[in-house]
């Protein structure tokens, strides 16, 4: 039997991935368990049996990865502060709302107002997005691999939305700035939405975003929607535009 080596360092602390079974837990208890994992230095956590509960994985910090092994309810990954959150099912209303940084990937469909008011980072919907996807975005990017429902990009201020499939009626309604790249067909365009010529820089951006979203699609064929800027200032001669917008 050999003597233990003197002065040997303990094995490097390697935080295990925390696994949290949500069955029977309240949302508050699940949140506390996730934050305990963060505080103990875990780098990842996995929520089993999430049961489409609301407010899972909110305001998690940079460097942390949370897997939600099923569907999530409202506000999943909301106020994200830099974490990577993977939702293996559907997400309810306002997934990733007000994200400051980080990545939220939804394997299924997303409910109303996915990526609402995000400032930065990436939100990916691998299925379809419902109404008002990317409403009020202030930066960052939203990629929808399927179709987006009515009013996608409503009142968007900055950032980019890539919709690989079709967009419903009212797409790009009342945008300030920002860009929507549309791979499929558009319904009736929103107030003040205009198609603009697409250029090489746009193609590079689409390619980059699709790559980061794990989607390989040809970037040709996308069209670019921006604000016509007629709603920036009120002019009596353009009363008709305002009437439609309000």
């Amino acid at each position, binding site marked *: 039997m050999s003597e233990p080596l003197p002065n040997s360092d303990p094995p490097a602390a390697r935080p295990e991935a925390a696994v949290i079974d949500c069955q029977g837990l309240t949302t508050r208890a699940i949140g506390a368990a996730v934050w305990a994992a963060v505080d103990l230095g875990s780098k990842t956590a996995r929520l089993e049996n999430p*049961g*489409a509960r609301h407010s899972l994985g909110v305001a998690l910090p940079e460097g942390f990865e949370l897997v939600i092994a099923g*569907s999530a*309810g409202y506000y999943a990954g909301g106020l994200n502060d830099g974490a990577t959150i993977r939702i293996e099912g559907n997400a*309810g209303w306002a997934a990733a709302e007000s994200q400051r940084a980080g990545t939220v990937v939804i394997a299924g469909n997303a409910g*109303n107002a996915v990526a609402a008011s995000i400032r930065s980072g990436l939100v990916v919907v691998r299925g379809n997005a*419902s*109404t008002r996807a990317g409403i009020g975005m202030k930066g960052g990017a939203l990629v929808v691999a399927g179709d987006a*429902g*009515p009013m996608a990009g409503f009142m968007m201020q900055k950032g980019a939305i890539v919709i690989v499939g079709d967009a419903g009626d009212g797409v790009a309604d009342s945008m300030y700035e920002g860009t929507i790249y549309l791979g499929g067909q558009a319904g009736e365009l929103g107030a003040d939405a205009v198609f603009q010529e697409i250029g090489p820089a746009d193609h590079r951006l689409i390619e980059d975003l699709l790559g980061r979203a794990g989607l390989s699609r040809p970037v040709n064929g996308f069209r670019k929607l921006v604000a016509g800027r007629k709603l920036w200032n009120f002019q009596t001669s353009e009363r008709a535009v305002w009437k439609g917008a309000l």
Partner: protein
Amino acid sequence: MCGIVGFLAKDSAHAAASGRIVLEMLEALARRGPDGAGFAGIGPAVDGHDQTVVIRIAGGELRVLRALDALGIVDQSGSGPRLEGGTIRLRFEPAQGVTAGQVETALSAAAGAPEVLAFGPRLELVKGVGPPRALEAAHAVSRFVGPVAIGHTRMSTESRIDLCHSQPFWIHGLPDHAIVHNGHITNYHRLRRAFEQEGARFHTENDSEVIGVFLKRSMDQGLDLIQAMERSVDELDGSFNYLVAAPEGLGVVRDPHGFKPLVLADAVEFTAVATEEIALEQALPGPFHAREPAPGSVLFFPAPKPAQSARDAGQRLRSTGT
């Protein structure tokens, strides 16, 4: 807020569990509506010789019972009139051609106009203030058996909190049809005035009641239920997801803007719909694909024909080797 749920069983095993499943879905949505809860289900098909109907009346007072007695309305269920949760329920055989409206009119003179909450050979409709567990305590809805059921948890915004203003609403004048609604019908007052001028009667101040009146009026004008639901998408304003429970199946309608949430799972054994996916997950174990019907959708899921159910049951027996 409010929460709505609907369930259509496509086999006998799920029909036997429809009351429990709808109750569990309602409990998952209880926080969306603490002011009231309700349930409406279409019971099993009755055989052709049975001419009885179930009537449920708001108000459990003796004078209502006496008035019913005076009208010759006598319970034939064998167990006597049931007084539960502030209502009276009895099964009786109406004289030829007697309608719920006539019963209601007769009661209004004799017993202070209690509302007839439900009427029909197969409709069981119960509701009240408080959460779903209070509904279960008063009416044991989990024991309900039948192919179609809907439920509601209510957060009152526009009208008073009492039994009659809770949902579901029976569609007055249309036996065995009931609706639940999540949202706010913003042209309610205008529609109500117009319909009242045509002779329609409203029983509450709840804007959701106008949906049933709208559907009934459209069907009186010759439309079928699905056509009436399609017309409602154009003529009702505001936010609405509503469900219709009928002997023929389950109707699902969304407003054109998708103002309110709704998810739907259409599986081989059942169709389930709820305001939030959490209700489906809680009440229906096992994998299913949940999706959101597009805004403006009008969907109708037909109930299996009784003959199909029998065949299904036969297959079930054979497949288990008994």
